[in-house]
């Protein structure tokens, strides 16, 4: 198995699915010509390999998503790229009131087999360009929401998302594109809606996903040196959300923490904490802690940005505090 980047893993998933199914198309802003293919180069070269099936669109996210929905209704399987998740706000009505609702509202007559791919997160791009919105998307009935943390998961989940008959919002943290991991050459799929234990430990359950998994794994190393072993659950799919592993884990560790990059209020961490305390209340020796992004429109300045977004040291600090009962 070769080590490849997260970006390359995604591209392979796209290429394999484009090859497998002539109904798969990719549309988005600047995915063809710009820099050879895509603001984050995920689609680089694909337009040449699949003439007519990878196309640049106007800047009009409401149309990118809406035209994608219509094509999906008609049996095409569009993958639409929103250049960053921030621009999904322009298409929010199409995502929430159209893509997510049509199957149920029309009593099953219409299907929307579409994938919306979008980079999320920060990178010195200030308030309007540094957001996540994972919790909003994951609260919408009718949507599926995926956010992988590793190249392996990225490839397997993206392929599954493309073959899924429902609208899937596929979130790619932009800080992950350059990360590397082993990805087999042979084909595999990872089913949506299944969380995974990424590290075994007996002291503290950490529920996380996306970039924060990487930070959590770094933190786990540090903490292990101090005798604190994290049990790390990667949600992978945010809707439907699989908390079965997390619940089992808490029954063993009796302590839980949720680590997320986005705003704390009404975040996925809130849901995980609320659900865990509902379900395994009697197993909890301490309140469930949340590490989350600070609720500030993201500032451009390096030091302020750094202070706003959680990193591994935040996870370390929070875990230490929990294990010494400083809550």
């Amino acid at each position, binding site marked *: 198995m070769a080590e490849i980047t997260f970006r390359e893993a995604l591209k392979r998933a796209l290429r394999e699915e484009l090859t497998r199914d002539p109904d798969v198309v990719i549309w988005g802003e600047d995915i063809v010509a710009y820099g050879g293919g895509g603001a984050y180069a995920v689609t680089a070269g694909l337009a040449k390999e699949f003439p007519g099936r990878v196309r640049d669109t106007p800047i009009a996210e409401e149309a990118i998503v809406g*035209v994608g929905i*219509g094509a*999906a209704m008609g049996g095409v399987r569009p993958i639409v790229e929103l250049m960053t998740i921030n621009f999904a706000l322009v298409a929010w009505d199409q995502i929430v009131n*159209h893509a997510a609702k049509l199957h149920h509202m*029309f*009593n*099953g007559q219409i299907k929307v087999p579409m994938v919306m791919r979008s980079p999320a997160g920060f990178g010195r791009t200030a308030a309007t360009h540094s957001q996540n919105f994972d919790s909003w998307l994951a609260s919408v009935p009718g949507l599926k929401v995926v956010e992988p943390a590793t190249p392996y998961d990225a490839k397997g989940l993206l392929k599954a998302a493309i073959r899924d008959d429902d609208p899937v919002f596929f979130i790619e943290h932009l800080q992950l594109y350059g990360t590397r991991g082993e990805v087999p050459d042979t084909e595999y799929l990872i089913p949506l809606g299944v969380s995974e234990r990424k590290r075994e430990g007996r002291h503290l359950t950490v529920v996380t996903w996306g970039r924060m998994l990487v930070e959590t794994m770094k933190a786990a190393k540090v903490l292990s040196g101090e005798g604190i072993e994290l049990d790390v659950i990667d949600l992978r799919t945010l809707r439907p959300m*699989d908390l079965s592993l997390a619940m089992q884990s808490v029954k063993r560790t009796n302590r839980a923490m949720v680590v997320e990059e986005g705003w704390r209020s009404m975040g996925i961490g809130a849901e995980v904490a609320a659900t865990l305390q509902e379900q395994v209340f009697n197993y909890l020796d301490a309140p469930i802690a949340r590490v989350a992004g600070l609720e500030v429109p993201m500032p451009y300045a390096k030091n302020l940005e750094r202070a706003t977004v959680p990193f591994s040291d935040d996870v370390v600090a929070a875990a230490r505090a929990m294990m010494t009962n400083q809550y």
Partner: protein
Amino acid sequence: MEMNKDELISLYRQMLLIRTFEDKSAEMYAKAKIAGFLHLYNGQEAIAVGALSALHSDDELVTHYRDHGYALARGIDSRFVMAELYGRETGTTGGRGGSMHIASVEKHFWGGYAIVGGHLPLAVGLAYANVHHNTGRIVLCVLGDGSTNIGTFHAALNWAQLWHLPVIFLVENNMWAMGTAISIHSSVIEIYKKAAAHEMYAERVDGKDVLAVHDAVCKLAERARSGEGPSLLEAVTYRYRGHSMADSDVQRSKEEINEQKQRDPLTMYLTNVLLKRNLLTDEQESQIHHEVEAEVDEAVAFADASAEPALDTLYDKIYAQPVANMQIDGSLIRPAALYTGNGTHG
């Protein structure tokens, strides 16, 4: 398309069915058999009937919420439409969508949509799908004058023109958007001129003249089918009733409404075409009336006799491909009764 006598008579029958169905719906709404929003089509019948008669039965149709007329003109059983207005399991969407979301994908009617302008990009995408699959089918996308000011309108037109897709945007200009007169909501009164921003072919037609609408759509459909791309048709019309049954309609003057009723699409067609050309006798006309009334009465009887959707189907069809074996899932699996208690009351 030249139409034969039967076809010409059928246009009248369809318009009459719509008018009668809408009047009956209003009645049933007053009796609280129907709830929520109910947008009636009285006065605009010539557009749906004229337009759909110009298309193939498998051309794709997408409309806004004022959709009963299109459903009936597309040949959807009036019983199923009425049952949907009632919210019954026999309705066109099993009671899920109600009045604003009538659909029959089998009949290539992809549904009525309730977010102003929201369905325009969908229609463009559907046109793409037909090109992609080389079906030869074109798309008719229906909207109102008030819906030409929202962002998706121009975003969709630009895309359709850029990709040269076979879609006809049919704007029913009834001069009002709810209670807002066109001069208050749009900088341009002649809606067809808006297509100029995309160098899209556009025309304006008398939306009360069923044959004029038919002819205009024939021409634009021909264009679309022969690869000449999208177009916009503005059909000038008027609705006789308020925006929806919730509208007291104090904003429009009685004079304006009465004046508009002078040019009634049904009467004009009956008098100026069918009777004048001797295509129909008075007797035949009253025969049609009886048939149509009987059909609508039966639709009501059917809806009344139909059951509400079963409560245990509430979670069905949220996903086309549900994820199996979720142990805890606020999103897919009904939370334990403890936390909601729902579904049993009421």
